[in-house]
């Protein structure tokens, strides 16, 4: 599903954000990526989204090396995965429904199908009754649910969650995590970058730790600090 081989990313200023990282994620896995700030977690998500190219090494998603993608192919890579960020990244002037529907408009789904699927996904994240509201009228947890709905509306194979609970209180965080588990249970591969010790320690999923750009730990049923 996802394979990193000897991935190194050095920025022009000389700092090495990732150093010879190797990692293999199977279809349907749930993986936590942990590590201190500056360990290279953000760089990893940027590489997976092809916002940055690796300096060397290979990143394969479903066997395709995304480092070699041509610029016009990048949007199609991004469509194959769902992304959720710490700061939600919703369109401020669009309603909940429009925000979610946009991911389907981009891939030119028929309007009839869009309406049906958006209603379905909003139901799933528990926001069916708030479909016409603007993000500013929602709580942080609700906004993250909208972002999550948008990320899964096209049924991606891989969901990339970059500190999805970073801005949320513990209780709301658990709500989001339960949704992520539900999504994972339908077969979606999950890569969650996080600082939430309690969540990682409770779920006992696979944990990958980065330290100064190097992959220092990879445990099947890990905890936050090994």
């Amino acid at each position: 599903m996802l394979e990193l081989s000897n991935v190194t990313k050095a920025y022009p200023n000389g700092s090495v954000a990732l150093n010879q990282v190797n990692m293999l994620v199977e279809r349907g896995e749930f993986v936590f990526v942990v590590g201190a700030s500056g360990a290279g977690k953000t760089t990893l998500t940027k590489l997976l989204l092809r916002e940055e190219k690796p300096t060397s090494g290979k990143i394969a998603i479903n066997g395709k090396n995304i480092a070699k993608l041509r610029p016009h192919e990048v949007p199609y890579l991004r469509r194959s995965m769902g992304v959720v960020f710490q700061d939600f990244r919703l369109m401020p002037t669009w309603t909940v429904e429009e925000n979610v529907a946009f991911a389907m408009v981009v891939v030119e789904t028929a309007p009839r199908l869009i309406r049906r699927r958006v209603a379905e996904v909003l139901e799933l994240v528990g926001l069916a009754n708030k479909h016409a509201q603007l993000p500013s009228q929602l709580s942080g947890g609700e906004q993250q649910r909208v972002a999550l709905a948008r990320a899964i509306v096209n049924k991606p194979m891989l969901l990339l969650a970059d500190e999805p609970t970073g801005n949320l209180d513990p209780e709301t965080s658990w709500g989001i995590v339960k949704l992520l588990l539900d999504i994972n249970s339908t077969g979606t591969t999950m890569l969650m970058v996080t600082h939430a010790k309690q969540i990682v320690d409770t779920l006992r999923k696979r944990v990958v730790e980065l330290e100064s750009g190097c992959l220092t730990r990879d445990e099947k049923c890990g905890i936050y600090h090994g």
Partner: protein
Amino acid sequence: MVKPRTFGYFFESAGKSLVRNSWMTLASISTVAVSLLVLGIFLLVAVNINAVAANVEGQLQVTAHLATLSAAERGRLETEIKAIPGVTEVRFVPQSEAWQRLLEWYGDNQDFLAGWEEENPLRDSFEIRADVSHRVPEIAAAVTVLAGVEEVLWGREIVEQLLAITRMMRLVGIGLMVALALAALFIIANTIRMAIFARRREIGIMRYIGATNWFIRWPFVIEGLVLGLLGGMMAASVLAWGYYLAVRALVQAIPFWPWVQPWPFLQQLALLLLSIGVVIGILGSGLSLRRYLDA
């Protein structure tokens, strides 16, 4: 290639964005309108100045006074004058007509001319016009040397000064025009850039979701088109209405002045302003987007 219904989405999206960012929309339309209005006003002034210059220049002519010639000799001379490069019109003025003009010129004070009529002291002449005013001096020189021509009048000093003045007026007009057009372009393009800068986060989000560059670009380009069109329309209508009223009043105040008539000039001007608005709107948003899109 996008599906036709996706184009429907682009228009819908552009429309929604124009309404939802109404403050920015209003600011952009006003900026376009004011810039184009200033440009338009100046164009009106420049075109009128040019019309005055052309009018004055059009009245320049060379007058050749003739010796006493037979009809055949006169005909030959006329053919020779017409052959001079740049001559567009040669008109024969017999001495009787010249006398009549003199009488009209003096109007009620023509008493002192009485008694001269019998032995009309004036001569026959040719009045010669040039295709372009700056050729008047060379035509005058060419006519002077022809047989049968006694004297050539063309107001050397006046003509030369006048031509210098009209040339100056045109140069200054064109210079200011260009400067103003550039300023308008810059202001409009900058407004659009700011509007897009304000929405760079939205553009970033669209990219994460997998929107292609053209998918992101289309609604913005349509928005730019609408802003440019509305701004241009406002500028054009204010200008057309204002000029129409102004000319109506001015024609009565200074009837002999060669005012450029509103029709069809205003139509051309309106079309010009609209085109500028639309083109800058489209190019401005299309180009400003580039830096926020994938390479």
